[in-house]
């Protein structure tokens, strides 16, 4: 267990007081400390949004990128340097809205990264428009008559697309969340942690109270996370009771990088580029003669 102070950034979070993002930040630090991952051994890649400011508030390598594009950047970093722990941090708009396509394909690609989604079911940073996970009927500046679409169910999507680690946490229970994040980091392959995160300013529906009254821990039930049918069922439970914990875990699936021949000795960022040898040049030239 490393010292939590290691991860203290000199920048003070600009989140609103009470924002669920604080709990997520704490849980992440907790998980890193517990797994003894040093700040220089991890790279956070985030998008744009309230939650995506997280890398600024933790002492660790960080890259705050573009709205929706954290996942391919994280995957590129991981393939180039598999020695780094790569953690993508996105909002719900970021990860499931504009970034939906990368989400889809990252799941089935199974590169060994962790994806933490700060799912406040609203667009926080741009001041309260509805998001893909907003409930049907959610009223916002762009849905004055209430959201019409069926909300995205990220867990079901991940399952439908062959995800190998699918979990949900709640920012109001950072200890439990830290536990899930630690498992996600340890999981070999793409690991989704969807985090229920109250936005105390723009989401008056999915509040702390809303969740506190509903969430229950899967570990405290007889849920078998290796059973796809049970996972599919739990992924659809949303109402009086909302499950948190590891919904699904498939073991023994090789990661993407394990299946690429040239990555077996490490990634290209781990050795400095070099000039071609005489033999290599000749081989290339011979093909052209």
């Amino acid at each position, binding site marked *: 267990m490393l010292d939590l102070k290691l991860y203290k950034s*000199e*920048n003070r979070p600009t989140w609103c007081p009470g924002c669920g993002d604080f709990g997520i930040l704490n849980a992440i630090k907790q998980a890193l400390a517990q797994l003894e991952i*040093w*700040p*220089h*051994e991890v*790279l*956070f*890649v985030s998008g*744009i949004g309230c939650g995506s*400011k997280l*890398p*600024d508030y933790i*002492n*660790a*390598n*960080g*890259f*705050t*990128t*573009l709205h929706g*594009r954290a*996942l*391919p*950047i*994280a*995957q*590129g*970093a*991981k*393939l*180039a*340097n598999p*020695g*780094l722990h790569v953690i993508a941090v996105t909002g719900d708009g970021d990860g499931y809205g504009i970034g939906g*396509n*990368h989400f*889809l*394909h990252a799941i089935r690609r199974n590169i060994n990264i962790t994806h933490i989604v700060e799912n406040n079911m609203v667009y926080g940073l741009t001041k309260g428009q509805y998001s893909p996970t907003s409930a049907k009927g959610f009223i916002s500046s762009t849905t004055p008559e209430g959201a019409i679409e069926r909300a995205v169910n990220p867990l079901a999507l991940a399952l439908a697309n062959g995800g190998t680690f699918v979990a949900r946490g709640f920012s109001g229970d950072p200890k439990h969340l830290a536990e899930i994040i630690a498992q996600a980091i340890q999981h070999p392959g793409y690991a989704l942690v969807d985090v229920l995160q109250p936005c105390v300013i723009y989401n008056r529906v999915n509040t702390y109270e809303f969740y506190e009254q509903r969430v229950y821990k899967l570990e405290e039930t007889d849920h078998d996370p290796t059973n796809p049918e049970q996972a599919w069922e739990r992924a659809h439970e949303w109402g009086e009771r909302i499950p948190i914990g590891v919904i699904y875990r498939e073991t023994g699936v090789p990661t993407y990088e394990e299946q*690429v*021949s*040239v*990555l077996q*000795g490490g*990634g*290209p*960022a*781990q050795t*400095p*580029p*070099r*000039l*071609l040898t005489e033999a*290599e*040049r000749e*081989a*290339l*030239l011979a093909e*052209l*003669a």
Partner: protein
Amino acid sequence: MPVQDLSLKLAGEAGQGVESNGAGFARALTRAGLYVYTASDYMSRIRGGHNSYLIRASAEKVRVHRDHLHLLLAFNPQAVTTHLGELVPEGAIIYDEGMKVPEAQVAAAGVQLFPLPLRELAEKVGGSRIMVNTAALGAATAVMGLDLSHVESVILDNFGSKKGAAVAEANLKVARAAYETAGERYADRFPWKLPKVANAPRRYLLNGNQAIAMGALAGGCRFISAYPMTPASSIFEWLTAQGPKYGVVSKQMEDEIAAITMAIGASYVGARAMTATSGGGLSLMVEALGLAGMAEVPLVVVNAMRPGPSTGMPTRTDQGDLLFVTHLAHGEFPRLILAPGNVRQCFEAGYRAFNLADKYQTPVIILTDGFLASSLETVDLEDLPFDEVTIDRGELLDGAALDQLEERYARFRVTESGISPRALPGHPKAVYTTPSDEHTEYGAFESEDAANRLQQHPKRMRKLETARAEMQGPTLYGPADAEITLVGWGSTLGALFEAVEILNEERPGTANLLHFTDLWPFPPAAEEALARTRRLVVVEENYTGQFARLLASETGRKADHLITRFDGRAITPDYVLQNLKEAAVHAGSQAV
């Protein structure tokens, strides 16, 4: 009657192997000690549609194709009607004697018909109708007075291992049979012969895309993420194929946005990473290019131009993206643009781009186009200058340097050059963040403070001024003092070079060529070079004369005359000469 050069064309339906046989024959000619240049013309469909493949060969260096043909291998009747007009008088058409051709029309054009039992030979001797191509090539070899051995060696290479010796054997037989028949019947009637070259050094046949990819590989590129798009795909496919041998990670992504951002991720942690795309793909990459600019991530992007707007003419060529690339993405950031003009320059651009990207920690865009991407050129060893390749990572701090760091590492340190020493993530002494928001020297968010902005934004932009000093060219070809100066950039080099040669042959001192490969930041030598010119004729493949406009805004010098082409075909020497003559008359040539 020997000629300097000889042009032949294979033409038929897509799926008839026009391109693969053409490329094979070009290789045979190269092995025969000749220089070749090819131009293929195919449609955006997989089977059917009319395709053609032109090969120009000579004992002297060939830089481009010409508009006229000496020999046509017609695989269907359409081939004859489409290309008859391109044949010079006394030129000939080789075709299967079972095929109907408009004899009167051909005769009127002064063109000869060389019917041959190609299909019969293929079926009887080879055992398969597919070998009609081989028969035609055997016949062509004979009438052009070439030795069959080079064709044979290519057949052996192509089929020897792959499809088994039996197929190779059959093809060899067909080629020889056709060679003999055609030789007997027509060799005497065909007025042009290719010279037999003794002891030619080994030469290489490749297109611009292969050269860029090879240059990149030589320059240490070990990561490519891309999304297929004609005419850029072959760069990606070439590196993918070589990947396992050289340790290149290659990844097809779900779209171009994912492709370029994945490359940014790979480069961010230290790999030499690139992507390659065209038109719509580049348009999708715009936002990410701005990110690389802001985050100061080295990045190499190849844009192979094709005629737009939008899907446009996918299999054709164009130079219509210049001003787009020069200004793309919201806001301002330094970018470098290289537009190689031939295989050698493609190779050079391939590794130079990586050195420039690392040095200036910003995107470098290589502008090529459909023509350069796919035209094969015979080059000498010195045109693939592996020995000149360097790997210069610029101000990259290695582990040892970081170990010794005494003060806190400032990733975006404000310097005079604009370049901030870079550490890769992973070292305990250099833990930092990079926001796409405006940020401090240490990488903390700072999208508010005016004073910080007035430090960081000029810092980034200064890199452009620093880089300007090492931008090369323009290169002057031809006499220093000429009546007119043709100005071109990128892939028109060969055509303009030869146009100048022809003009000066007709009347010495008529013309020279000022050719640009380094386009942005605009090379500082341009002004001086322009000062020594008289009448300026800008030649380019787009509608609005984009380079002419860039020239005006960067140097204040307006073109006296503009020759454009925007029908998807490459500019040839003939096109330039004709336009110069017709000047005010022709649509593609405007007085400006």
